């Protein structure tokens, strides 16, 4: 189904994030997913094998309860504590950290919702694991929200709106892709506003996606704006 995110390149690449899983039964034809498997030894992935697959590959399995999920290490509890303390280089962990984290939260919520329904029907008593995963998902969302909307957001907006003509490479190289998009939108709007103040009458362009290098955002002061003839 085509949604507004279907053609979003960063959203697609964020789904490449590897998710640790554990198989709940034997998987035929998938022995190659076992990182310790010797080629040709088996034609199936045994029950209880721990392996990693991308988000896009595991989503359906998670919905049907074929695997047990857990969070990748750089989204885990210790990593989140370091991020909340401001000690972590977020972009180094994942260039699309916030998009991937949001996606993981959605995956865990879908997983817990479907599996809980199935386990309650079957009378399975292992609901403590589900409660643990729900808590992890909620804490992940809180960390993402506090990291994105805290000091980073105010710095990004400050730089974006006041850096017309400046070299911003040093600042933007630490931003994730989502933050870079925000920065570019703000910088383009600020640049357009500066150009309008100088030349007037030229159209103030709506902010769109620009494939610019993030070295400098400078209004083009060499090209005169369009001068509209007034009939008076």
């Amino acid at each position, binding site marked *: 189904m085509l949604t507004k995110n*279907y*053609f*979003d*390149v960063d959203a*697609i*690449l964020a789904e*490449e994030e590897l998710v640790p899983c554990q*198989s709940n*039964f*034997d*998987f*035929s*034809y*998938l022995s190659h997913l076992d990182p310790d498997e010797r080629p040709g030894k088996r034609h*199936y992935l045994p029950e209880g094998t721990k392996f990693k697959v*991308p988000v*896009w*590959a595991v*989503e*359906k*399995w998670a919905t*049907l309860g*074929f695997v047990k999920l857990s969070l990748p290490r750089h989204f885990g509890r210790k990593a989140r504590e370091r991020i909340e303390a401001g000690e972590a280089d977020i972009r180094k962990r994942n260039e699309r950290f916030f998009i991937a984290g949001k996606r993981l939260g959605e995956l865990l919520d879908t997983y817990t919702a479907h599996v809980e329904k199935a386990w309650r029907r079957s009378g399975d008593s292992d609901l403590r694991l589900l409660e643990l995963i729900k808590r992890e998902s909620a804490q992940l969302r809180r960390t993402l929200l506090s990291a994105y909307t805290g000091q980073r957001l105010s710095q990004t907006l400050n730089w974006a709106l006041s850096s017309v003509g400046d070299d911003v490479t040093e600042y933007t190289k630490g931003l994730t892709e989502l933050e870079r998009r925000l920065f570019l939108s703000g910088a383009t709007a600020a640049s357009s506003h500066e150009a*309008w*103040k100088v030349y*007037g*009458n*030229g*159209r103030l362009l709506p902010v769109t996606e*620009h*494939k*610019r*290098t993030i*070295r*400098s955002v*400078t209004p*083009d002061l060499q*090209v005169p704006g*369009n001068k*509209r003839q*007034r*009939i*008076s």
Partner: protein
Amino acid sequence: MDFGRYGRELLLELKRSNAAYNDTLVSSCLQDLNLHVCALGDQVAAASRDQHASTDGKPKLSMSVRPSILLQEAAIHRNKRCLLTYHWVRLQRIQKQYWSPRQEENEEPQQLGPAEEDFLQAYQQLHQRYAQNTLPFVDDLRAHAGLPPLNTERVLLRVVTAPTEGPVVLASGVSVEFRVGATHFLPWNDVEEWVRKGHLRVLTGEEHNE
């Protein structure tokens, strides 16, 4: 068969540069997709041969084969999405290149493949035909795309510093005298220059209620 590798490389290439259309990578991605389709067909056929009757009497696929079938299906959709996105993004860039031929500072020009050159030409001809049929006095829509429309909408303004002394007749025929702190409701065409220079300030509804 590498699950999603070629699709990922296509998108990374899109992010990195305005390079030419990568026919080799697109072909590899299509080939990968076809391999997944064949593998899916083989697995379903093999599983159908081995299926057993469930408690309700209807035949069911073995549980052990279902994860692989679902993974093949996910890989097919993944490759399809990457291919469609690659082509969609490139088409957006070509259209943007048509409407904004002046290059932005530091921006590399989009390199086009032969099919993309044909698309750009056909797109240009489409716009020219539209212009000829609907706006006979317009040679090129792009020349007029850069001009702002005449804005006769009225806006609420507060005078910060008086731009003129005494009463003045504006281009629209409205007569007004600007006093510091006064509020006026005037056509945007007449006052844009003064707003730009800071003599007048546009008010929103909230400010007017102060």
